[in-house]
């Protein structure tokens, strides 16, 4: 990053001064640039402020220990236990599906596929996948898992949809990290007669591990807030369903969606607390990822 204009200004007497018009334009642009930053801060502050103040109203024990079973929109009480449980289960399954596939793909792209046609095709594919709208991933699982294979709504179906959204992010993050591993390490290992797969598993991967973990956590934080694919795959339920493989399951985003659609203020309050819980979970993951990256940053710097 370069900071322009940090050098000392030469004295006006030797170079002549900048004309007032140029100075004015410079100042005007500077004002606009500052303004654009302030403009971006308005919604951020507004969203966070409202989520925190309105979310605190129902941030109580009931919210984290009860479900919405038998609670109507206008009733006090009720909670999001079923939704939090569902979200955690779904995200765990998503990670278990997406991470191995994504990491192996990244290993292929970096270690084996350099310059090969298949690798180029896969890389292109990852780009395409990054741009898939989340709702399309949901529709795909609806068409494949529910309509073609005939399974019913379940948390697992939601995880499948989320996995599609998570894979490309993890592939890209892992790729970047693997590329950072110095070639000397690989060559030293080869020189000792270690087979390639052991080199990758026990030399390359451990070196890149913290970076990969950071990437995975950021990806998890991203898919955790996805709503649209879940609506189509896990449906909406108000009761606790501990089994992610059978029957509709709750999730925090769909809980917020459901409660926000209710005009009663008690329901809207629950929606805000749900939003606060979701944001706290995501921020926690984000911070943890950054902490890991910071604590175990490579020694090469």
């Amino acid at each position, binding site marked *: 990053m*370069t900071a322009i204009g940090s050098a000392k200004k030469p004295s006006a007497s030797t170079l002549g001064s900048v004309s007032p018009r140029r100075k004015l334009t*410079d100042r005007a642009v500077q004002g606009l640039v500052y303004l654009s930053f302030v403009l971006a801060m308005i919604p951020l502050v507004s969203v966070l402020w409202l989520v925190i103040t309105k979310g605190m109203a129902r941030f109580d024990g009931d919210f984290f220990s009860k479900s919405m079973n038998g609670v109507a929109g206008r009733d006090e009480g009720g909670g999001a236990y079923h939704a939090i449980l569902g979200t955690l289960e779904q995200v765990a399954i998503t990670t278990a599906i997406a991470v191995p596939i994504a990491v192996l793909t990244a290993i*292929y792209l970096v270690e084996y596929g350099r310059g090969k046609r298949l690798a180029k095709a896969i890389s292109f594919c*990852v780009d395409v996948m990054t741009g898939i709208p989340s709702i399309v991933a949901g529709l795909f699982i609806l068409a*494949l898992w529910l309509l073609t294979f005939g399974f019913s709504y379940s948390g697992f179906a939601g995880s499948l949809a989320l996995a599609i959204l998570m894979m490309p992010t993890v592939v890209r993050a892992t790729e970047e990290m693997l590329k950072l591993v110095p070639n000397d390490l690989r060559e030293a290992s080869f020189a000792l007669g270690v087979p390639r797969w052991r080199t990758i598993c026990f030399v390359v991967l451990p070196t890149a591990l913290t970076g990969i973990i950071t990437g995975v956590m950021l990806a998890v934080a991203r898919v955790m807030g996805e709503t649209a694919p879940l609506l189509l795959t896990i449906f909406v339920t108000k009761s606790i369903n501990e089994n992610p493989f059978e029957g509709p399951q709750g999730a925090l985003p769909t809980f917020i969606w459901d409660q926000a659609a209710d005009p009663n203020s008690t329901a809207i309050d629950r929606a805000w607390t749900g939003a606060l819980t979701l944001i706290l979970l995501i921020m926690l993951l984000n911070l943890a990822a950054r902490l890991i990256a910071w604590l175990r940053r490579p020694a090469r710097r």
Partner: protein
Amino acid sequence: MSTGRFGDRLFVLGTRGSGILLLVIIVSIGAFLIWKAIDALQANEANFLTSQVWNPNGRPPEFGIAQLAFGTVMSSFLALIMATPVAIGIALFTTFYAPRRLAAGLSYVVDLLAAVPSIVYGLWGLTFLVTKMDDVSQFLNDYFGWIPLFGGDSVGGRSIFTASVVLAIMILPIISSISREVFAQVPTANVEAALALGATRWETIRIAVLPFGRSGMISAAMLGLGRAMGETIAVAMVLSSAAGISLHVLRDGGGTIAGNIANSYAEVTPISQGALIASGLVLFAITLVVNMGARAIVARRKEFV
């Protein structure tokens, strides 16, 4: 290297298999969406591409993508127009204007905008922004009604315009973070040369930074556009649905492809599900074209990855 060993072969097989699995997923997304949409499209009595009606449960079923596609494109383009200048301003701010020690922190704060899930933006839009936008829309309609976009008689907060404001906020971080990456790669020599000629800070940016980053900024904007088009939940919550294509973006109502799917997720008849899948296919195709365009621009001038 002994590639003939069993472990090596197995490992290559596994990694290549995973990569191929990704290929299979992409292909099958297209294939399954087409396959499951065909039945509904055949039962459809209206022209799918031009009809403005969305009534897949009617007898006979009638549905067309025209109105929804219009809403998607309209709201995304408005969002893009609002977001791009601000995002580039932010990128310039964090790269060139902010004190260097604060720059990393400030760009992290902007990235926080991306960490807020869309459902939260939806909730915020529905309960807070909509009421504010009522007044803004009324103001725009009163004073700028002569612009066709802001014309019309019935003005409300749950309009395409409000939706595009929410979308603009959501695509800000992606556009600004990519632009920031581009700006960070401007050769220092170019910047210093401009400064040595006595250019002011703005002149330096104009002659050394912006031309260098043009293709990067364009592709950043297009990636943002792709994201805006696919955004579902926030739009579905903000808009109140009303039928018909209208250029008057301040009017209550309108719909987007993605928003319509989210609002009718509970539909379970085969025809209505097929209709939704067909509309999803159109959305997939549109976003694919936009994203490919962005990537092509990046690939043509490989200043950054």
